[in-house]
């Protein structure tokens, strides 16, 4: 017990003084997620506001040929500006990025309209450019509306009720709740927590084998009258402490970020108050042991610090895979998913954020199976720590 505690406290002290560990545990993990998240949310909000009719500029070539159309577009908050001087410059202007969209109204537009021949206009856009695609969609929608308006007028003029043109009227009814809508966007949150907690212990896990070996401190350590099981346990537990700190910080930083995000503009009210923060912490706690032992295990097979870092970046990504697959297939929580670490935590967390009733059995299976795998991996680490090959 004393050996374990000695190793444990020494690792804590050693790593608190190590700027690299501290940066990754207390800054990188906890800050990276929320910052990226805030960025993505802000972008979605910007886009949502874009769609709500704010002013958009539309360069037009030949606006003099269609004064009524121009007035209609202006009534839809589209500001008509002069396009490229020569009529053939539209494609070039879009290609070069001078304009995102250019509308060309040919000279014969008025004539064709008068003759009830479909009057042609050309809309130049670059579909590979997402901003251009959005503006083109808006211009197209406006033109479509103008088209329908003209059609309705023509039908009325011929004594036909324009309603014959819409035999079906579809009403969209969205039953999702504000919390539920948040869950879609906040689904990526659980990965950030797992990422942050893994980052917190990464350097400690490497240090246990590859780091000690590279520094030349492993052999003297192993020649001391202590059992290797106690050494590795002390090291893994110290890693767990850093990972728990990292997790707690990232939960709290998310909590703060969400408070300041205007999520209600997106029609979202995530259930992420302090009680959920606490619940999420305890839910993810078993994953810490698993993560620490898994990283220690992977690092123990590597020859050097650098190699360990390379392999551990793969470990950082691994927990995303089940989450990603389930998100793509939009699978609902099922009993068997609860045996899969990272996936079970993700699914339960999403339910928490959605403010849906939690399934006690699911939580129990998630906690117990994740813990069991963690204990097993720790045991394997301890076994491997006895190998001679450890010395490299």
């Amino acid at each position: 017990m004393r050996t374990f505690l000695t190793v444990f406290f020494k690792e804590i002290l050693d790593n608190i003084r190590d700027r690299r560990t501290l940066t990754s545990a207390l800054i990188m993990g906890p800050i990276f997620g929320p910052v990226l998240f805030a960025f993505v949310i802000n972008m979605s909000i910007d886009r949502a506001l874009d769609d709500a009719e704010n002013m958009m500029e539309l360069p037009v070539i030949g606006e003099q040929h269609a004064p009524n159309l121009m007035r209609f577009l202006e009534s839809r908050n589209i500001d008509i500006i002069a396009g490229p001087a020569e009529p053939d410059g539209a494609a070039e202007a879009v290609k070069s990025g001078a304009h995102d969209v250019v509308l060309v109204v040919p000279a014969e537009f008025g004539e064709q309209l008068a003759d009830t021949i479909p009057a042609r206009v050309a809309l130049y856009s670059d579909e590979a450019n997402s901003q251009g695609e959005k503006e083109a969609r808006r211009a197209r929608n406006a033109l479509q509306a103008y088209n329908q308006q003209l059609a309705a007028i023509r039908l009325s003029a011929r004594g036909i009720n324009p309603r014959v043109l819409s035999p079906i009227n579809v009403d969209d009814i969205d039953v999702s709740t504000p919390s539920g809508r948040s869950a879609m966007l906040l689904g990526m949150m659980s990965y950030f927590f797992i990422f942050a907690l893994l980052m917190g212990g990464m350097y400690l896990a490497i240090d246990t084998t590859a780091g000690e070996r590279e520094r030349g401190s492993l052999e003297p350590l192993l020649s001391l009258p202590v059992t290797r099981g106690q050494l590795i346990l002390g090291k893994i537990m110290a890693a767990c402490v850093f990972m728990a700190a990292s997790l707690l910080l990232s939960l709290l930083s998310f909590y703060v970020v969400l408070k300041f995000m205007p999520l209600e503009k997106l029609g979202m009210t995530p259930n992420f108050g302090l009680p959920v923060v606490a619940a999420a912490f305890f839910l993810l706690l078993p994953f810490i042991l698993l993560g620490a032992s898994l990283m220690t295990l992977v690092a123990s097979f590597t020859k050097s610090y650098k190699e360990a870092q390379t392999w551990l970046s793969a470990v950082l990504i691994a927990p995303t895979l089940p989450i990603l697959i389930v998100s793509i297939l939009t699978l609902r929580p099922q009993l068997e998913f609860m045996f899969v670490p990272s996936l079970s935590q993700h699914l339960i967390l999403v339910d928490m954020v959605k403010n849906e009733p939690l399934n006690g059995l699911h939580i129990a299976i998630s906690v117990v199976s994740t813990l069991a795998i963690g204990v097993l991996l720790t045991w394997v680490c301890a076994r491997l720590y006895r190998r001679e090959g450890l010395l490299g």
Partner: protein
Amino acid sequence: MITVDGIHKSFGKVHAVRGVSFQAPDGKITGLLGPNGAGKSTTLRVLYTVLKPDQGSANIDGADVVKDSLAARKKIGALPHGAGLYPHLSARENIAYYANLCAIDKSEIDDRVASIISLLEIEDFADRRTKGFSQGQRTKVSLARALVHDPQNVILDEPSNGLDVMATRSLRRLILKLKDAGRCVLFSSHVMQEVAALCDDICIIANGQVAIDDSVAGIRERTGEEDLEEAFVTAIKLVGVEE
């Protein structure tokens, strides 16, 4: 007292140690001498229990290094080749860490650490973090932490590597002090003069085998060479290693 009895050790196809036997008695300094790659480090690593011999056995004061490795480790203080320190801990903390791991009584630790620090004359930098220490400073701290629990048997793998004249001298004085205190000191080197100046017994190994195991005078006599360097060269030829 350290007893080595016919140990063999291979790494893959390399047969590094081929039946090495010798004894390092208490109150004497035993030198393990040999060219680079002779199997000195491998032999010592078996003794401080980080490697297991493929054949043969070794014991420290009767404790077998394989069957009872924990008991064997309790009786030794080891300075592995190129031993490293924890750069974020001070020299004192590095030494105290080992003292704690050696289960020295908590109330005694501060005194023990302080006394080993003064014995090795490292007071000047004892409270600095070891990051950026010179090779000599690192070796002294490594030695201090290896000796903090006052082991009966001391195993040093090329301790004078990278040390300047002053540091080598103080190391020599320390080794002699340990001898006078009745300790068993076993150290390896590839420098004949250094070994000759200190050791009571010299075990010359080459090519993984013991070439000669004798006192300095005995080695001179058996090789018929007055010059120590010539004696060393003649000795290693006995086990079939060309110059």
